[in-house]
């Protein structure tokens, strides 16, 4: 029974990890920028859900509807006004710039919300269901389903809409896309906005399950990194595969080695992948 429980947990967590990583992966794949603010965006989204529920009485599903456009605009402007100015600069410059932005956002959150851990508690509680001996909390299940739905939505957007196709085109060959009449600057900003919106929505879902604190942003960022490298850059299915693999390795690792080693294990996995297969499970070579 333990094996099945571990498997189910991995499945549930894996979808959430995919949702955390997918915006990060999009930005990295399309803009070739490692977006270190991603973790703080997620936490900010969680605070949004928490605030909407506690002060306005809005359920997290309405919070999703607020978070998506708000974060999109925020991300769009951030890219246009700041990131765009250094987008062609070497890795070090873009990395350090997003790190600086993250310091500001994170410090602002610590200042306003304090570093205490909070939890969004739904009233009435959703309880849990058990099939045979496997117990799954319902809120976790709902969050997972929403994460999957968001992932699928992004997949549809990238495949079916004109903007999505333009994003994919820029990701594959920037210069050719320019020749085909794609406005790269606005696509970059759109991709960054989408990444931010997905991070905000992921944050709303995280608020349902995990405690909220500005201090957790680096943990989310770490997960996004690992999932991205495991799965491969800029691909939706890659993020899902990476998320599931990470959750599985963490779950099995916690059972056999104890939960304290889960982080080490995931980073060892990351380094192995970086050296052996840097393009990830489903990724293609050529993005550095």
């Amino acid at each position, binding site marked *: 029974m333990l094996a099945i429980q571990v498997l189910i947990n991995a499945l549930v967590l894996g979808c959430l990890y995919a949702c955390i990583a997918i915006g990060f992966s999009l930005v990295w794949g399309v803009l070739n920028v490692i977006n270190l603010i991603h973790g703080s965006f997620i936490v900010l989204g969680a605070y949004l859900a928490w605030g909407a529920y506690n002060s306005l009485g809005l359920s997290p599903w309405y919070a999703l509807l607020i978070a998506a456009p708000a974060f999109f605009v925020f991300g769009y402007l951030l890219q246009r006004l700041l990131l765009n100015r250094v987008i062609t600069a070497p890795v070090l410059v873009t*990395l350090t710039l997003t790190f600086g932005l993250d*310091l*500001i956002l994170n410090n602002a959150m610590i200042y306003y919300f304090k570093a205490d851990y909070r939890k969004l508690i739904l009233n009435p509680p959703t309880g849990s269901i058990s099939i045979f001996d496997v117990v799954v909390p319902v809120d976790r299940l709902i969050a997972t389903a929403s994460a999957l739905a968001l992932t699928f939505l992004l997949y549809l957007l990238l495949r079916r809409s004109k903007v999505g196709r333009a994003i994919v085109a820029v990701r594959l060959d920037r210069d050719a896309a320019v020749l085909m009449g794609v406005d790269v600057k606005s696509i970059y900003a759109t991709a960054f906005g989408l990444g931010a919106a997905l991070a905000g929505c992921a944050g709303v879902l995280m608020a349902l399950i995990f405690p909220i604190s500005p201090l957790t942003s680096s943990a989310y960022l770490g997960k996004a*990194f690992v999932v991205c490298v495991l799965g491969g850059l800029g691909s939706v299915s890659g993020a899902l595969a990476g998320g599931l693999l990470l959750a599985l390795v963490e779950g099995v690792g916690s059972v056999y080695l104890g939960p304290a080693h889960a982080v080490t294990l995931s980073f060892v996995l990351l380094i192995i992948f970086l*050296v052996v297969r840097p393009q990830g499970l489903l990724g293609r070579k050529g993005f550095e």
Partner: protein
Amino acid sequence: MTRTNIALLVLIAFVAALPLFGDAYALRLGTMACMYAIFALSWNIVGGFAGYPSFATAAFFGLGAYTTGILMNKGVPLTLSLLGSLVLCLVLAAALGAVLLRLRGHYFAIASLSLVEVFRELVNNATDLTGGGMGLNIPLVSGSSVLSDATFFFYAMWGLLLITALVVIAVSMSKLGFGLNCIRQNETASNMVGLNSTLYKAVAFGLSACFVGAAGGLYAAWVHYIDPSDVFDILYSVKPIVMALMGGLGSPLGVVCGAFVYLGLEEVVWRNYIQIHSGVLGVLIILLLLFLPHGLISLHAGKVWRGLFGRKAKHV
């Protein structure tokens, strides 16, 4: 010996005179300044000369701090413990560098960043040896007065800075420095003309880690208590980059000046706005990258004007 190298040594010599007019606070500031300068100079070997964006400084700082702390708790004298930290970091970093430096760009940055996390978790979980999250107490070195203790650690850190500077100058003038420059400009081409780039990069990574490790050891002995979240702080990885960018990438004199200026700014912010200090650091980073991408060393009135109002600032 170029003119800038001499200027660097003169600057470091000047810092040595600090205890003449200082109380314990000035000494603390001086020790920190020397430590930051060691970070920046060391980072410059990999980040400035070879052009690899390393975020591993905190990893080797923490490793050195813990190695010295553990050795001193076992009764090993300070000098030997420091030497142990230095050698361990040199060997381990060279070995890791041979593997990790095969990665480039973002991938190398992430791998080096994750090194910090891995070391922190390992130290956190090896409770028997390191005390885990409880931290590690380190025996006092002298036990004499506060001021003489502060003076001792100031000169120790200063000495380490001097050694680091001499080694970095030697590297910059040697075949190794030349090779690293070639690697930065075009690694594939350097490989093709027969440069053993793996060896060069591994040696560079080892050198960039060993002095940071020794500085970590000195820091541990200086503050008498370390814990994983303190010494494996990711900010220790980012600060040297900011200092190097501030002073001017690749120039040893520039990065040391950058370190001193950075410490000054940090101290002013810490004293006045403690609650928002990391936010202020963030603003500083952004202003620096947008308006002064070549660092203080490039400061001439005309250049500043162009940097602020010109069409597009060029980046390093």
